[in-house]
């Protein structure tokens, strides 16, 4: 959250130095970075949950040997993280709109679309977060860096703070393969009053119904991948004796 505000501040300064900052661009950045909080919270928060249960609270082995599936447990924790992040997102949007007068709106006609997009996107985010969290089983010490790193990649390549069209072609193609790129695009359809002129033409051309379809298909693929990764990593961790490993001494 603080990150978002700092970003906006930097943008103001840069804009003041370099000429006019179109308010649409500001709104573009604002919406992107506000919703990115979900992504970061899911990726890094999931890592923290597993790491905390393992190293700090040392409860992981008791959760793991209980009848509840650890996968289900971690998804549950993921939803809690999303609620926490959601409060932050709301606050940031409110500040942006109310205090800074950034042109963020809400296209009421798109309310059902928005709800569907939000749910699909959050599920996708959690599924990816769970897979990243699972890898934490194996990489006790470097897991934090890894989840931050992946979050960073998403930050650059999913059009969070600048349109994909700014990137070199390979970067654009890469971004087009990440489902969350379409999530941010879909959210902006609802929340931006006007699109900035720099916005990515490829994404702009996709109709809302197709965006929904892409997100729904992505969710299926990402969920299956996430489950497979998690199962595999869990098996490996149980084989190597790393489920309840502690490194804190």
């Amino acid at each position, binding site marked *: 959250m603080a990150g978002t505000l700092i970003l906006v501040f930097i943008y103001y300064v840069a804009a003041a130095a370099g000429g006019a900052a179109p308010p649409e661009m500001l709104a573009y950045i604002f919406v992107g970075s506000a919703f990115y909080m979900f992504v970061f919270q899911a990726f890094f928060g999931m890592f923290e949950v597993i790491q905390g249960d393992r190293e700090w*609270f040392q*409860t992981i082995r008791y959760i793991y040997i209980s*009848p*509840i599936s650890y996968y289900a*447990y971690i998804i549950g924790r993921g939803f809690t993280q999303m609620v926490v992040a959601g409060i932050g997102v709301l606050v940031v949007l409110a500040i942006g709109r109310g205090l800074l007068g950034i042109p963020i709106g809400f296209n009421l006609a798109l309310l059902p679309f928005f709800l569907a997009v939000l749910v699909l996107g959050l599920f996708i985010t959690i599924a990816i977060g769970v897979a990243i969290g699972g890898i934490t089983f194996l990489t006790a010490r470097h897991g934090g860096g890894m989840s931050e790193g992946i979050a960073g990649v998403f930050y650059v390549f999913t059009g969070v703070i600048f349109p994909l069209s700014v990137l070199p072609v390979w970067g654009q193609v890469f971004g087009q393969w990440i489902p969350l790129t379409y999530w941010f695009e879909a959210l902006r359809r609802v929340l931006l009053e006007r699109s900035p002129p720099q916005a990515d033409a490829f994404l702009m051309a996709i109709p809302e119904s197709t965006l929904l379809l892409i997100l729904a298909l992505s969710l299926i693929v990402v969920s299956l991948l996430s489950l497979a990764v998690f199962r595999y990593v869990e*098996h490996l961790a*149980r084989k190597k*004796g790393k489920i309840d490993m502690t490194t804190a001494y």
Partner: protein
Amino acid sequence: MKDAIRTKELTRVFGGKKRRLRPRDAPEKRVIALDRVDTQVAEGELFGLLGPNGAGKTTLIKILATLLLPTSGSATVAGYDVAKDPYPIRQRINMVSGGETSGYGLLTTRENIWMFSQFYGIPSKVAKAEIDRLLKEFELWERRDAKVRTLSTGERQKMNMVRGFVTDPDIIFLDEPTLGLDVSAARAIRQFIRGWIQENHAKTVLLTTHYMMEADELCDRIAIIDNGRILACDTPERLKGMVKREVTVKLETDRLKDPKAFDVIEGVQNYVVKEEAQTNRTSLTFILEDDAPIGDIMSEVLNQGSKVQSMEKIDPTLEEVFISLVGKGLD
């Protein structure tokens, strides 16, 4: 009677595979924590694992509790294979490890236990009543609403016992449940375990311990384990009977120059040496085939310029069984 636990050639090796990732001259750190272990624990039994540090006790418990996979061999718990079928096992077991401080510090004692009970699908009301009953039984009632981070080590240990028993498992694994507890708390826990298994005939306890007395007083059967191998497995009485033929002698002498010198004396099966730094004495426990070597032992003590302060023949306890099998004491 049905088997609660059964292992066949159960082996667990740690490390020693990734040759490529190891610096070239680093030694291969391959540890055989369990070496072809065959055990069988019947339903309703209170079974003890007794062994020195690093013997493989915790490793065995982790495999049975589905935390760790075997390297080879197999293990079944409640009839299910630990590697292939962990889910039905998890519905029937629980586990408590001593000497650790697990728990969410910001939750209260009760909340913590309640949370875990919910992973077992116990109706909240039932769980709460049972938690309260157990908290009283473990004399933790006063601390029920205290934040876990304010609990003492012993209190946390008791909380973990409640966490383990509240789910009413068929088989419970207790890894050194009295570790670091004071005498009365340890006794309370032992009494609870005894009572629990007496009240519920189909319940099974697998317990590890360092304390001979605890194993002797508590367990129906004991397996003595060292270096990943089970050296003997029987009732405490029968284990003690194993060394009945032998003579156990406790000797206290002034400090010895060479306490290892007794190896060569014929008729000495095994012995342990303890240096008493405070009194500057050495105490020795010998397991002898018969009385004959006592004379040789005495002269060896005198040869070293030392004096015998006291000598007694003792009835074998588990300690002697242990020394005779493992070749060292347990502390």
